[in-house]
């Protein structure tokens, strides 16, 4: 059992504690993912703000891990401005330790629609993804799937 799960099994007995903890994690996750996706799209805060129909200071607030006043409307606008989709779902607590352990930059990345291999008219020519398939000894199709799901980050913009 991981140290994190051990700590959670003790402290999450308290309902108020576990909801405060998970809400805080959600705030951190959203702030970090917006920042990460904006940077990967080579956008400034001002550019993202313009595309999302808001202002730069709002983007700065959204990219702060302490921010907690999310609205679905704003998140939908941010998603669209970043070329990705918004997914909202209810989850159990058991998946949380793994989500926290995976809280790393590459796990937050998602491809915008216009670079998503699943929607390319032809399979994109990518020596790096082919190399991934070879190195990991996995079928090329799976390498593309992993790429599309953000499980493995390969920078397709710098071919």
């Amino acid at each position, binding site marked *: 059992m991981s140290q*994190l799960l051990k*700590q959670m099994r003790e*402290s999450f007995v*308290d309902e*108020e*504690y*576990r909801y*405060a*903890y*998970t*809400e*805080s*994690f959600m705030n*951190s*996750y959203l*702030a*970090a993912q917006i*920042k*990460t996706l904006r940077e990967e799209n080579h956008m400034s805060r001002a550019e993202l703000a313009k595309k999302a129909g808001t202002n730069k200071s709002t983007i700065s607030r959204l*990219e*702060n*891990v*302490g*921010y*907690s006043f999310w609205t679905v409307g704003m998140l939908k606008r941010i998603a669209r401005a970043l070329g990705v989709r918004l997914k909202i779902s209810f989850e159990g607590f058991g998946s949380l330790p793994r989500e*926290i*352990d*995976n*809280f*790393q*930059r*590459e796990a*937050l990345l998602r491809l915008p629609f216009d670079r998503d291999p699943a929607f390319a008219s032809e399979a994109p020519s990518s020596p*790096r993804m082919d*190399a*991934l398939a070879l*190195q990991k000894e996995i079928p090329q199709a799976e390498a593309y799937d992993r790429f599309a799901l953000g499980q*493995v*980050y*390969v*920078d397709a913009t*710098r071919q």
Partner: protein
Amino acid sequence: MLVMMALQWQVFCFITHRGENIIREWLRKEKVPRTQVAVFQSKLDTFERGGPDLSPGLISSGPVAKDIYKMKIKGHKGHVQLRPMLCYGPFGDAEITLLAGAIEKGFKLIPSTCFSEAQENRTILVANPSRRRNESVA
């Protein structure tokens, strides 16, 4: 192939001469609500996985005193604003050490001695590296 590898960060807490975690002791003394402790622990757990890059706004961008930075934990549902003092390192590149507790009320830090306390504890730690532990604050 370009695969970005994340650096594993560690968060340590200074240990008092009585062997107690200074942050746990401070949270207990200040009677900080459990929900606020939960928010604090959550921020530390995510910081250890993603480092400063994935915790934007958590730590002051510049030092608040020589070698000392301020962590900003927003009050959960109107609770007290926690402002623990910390330093980067001081022994490794991917680590921070929490050195003293403080809260913020009306743009003032309480206690007002938190900077000097943090600096003194850092000095003690540099001379005695065993005076810190990597453990939960909850």
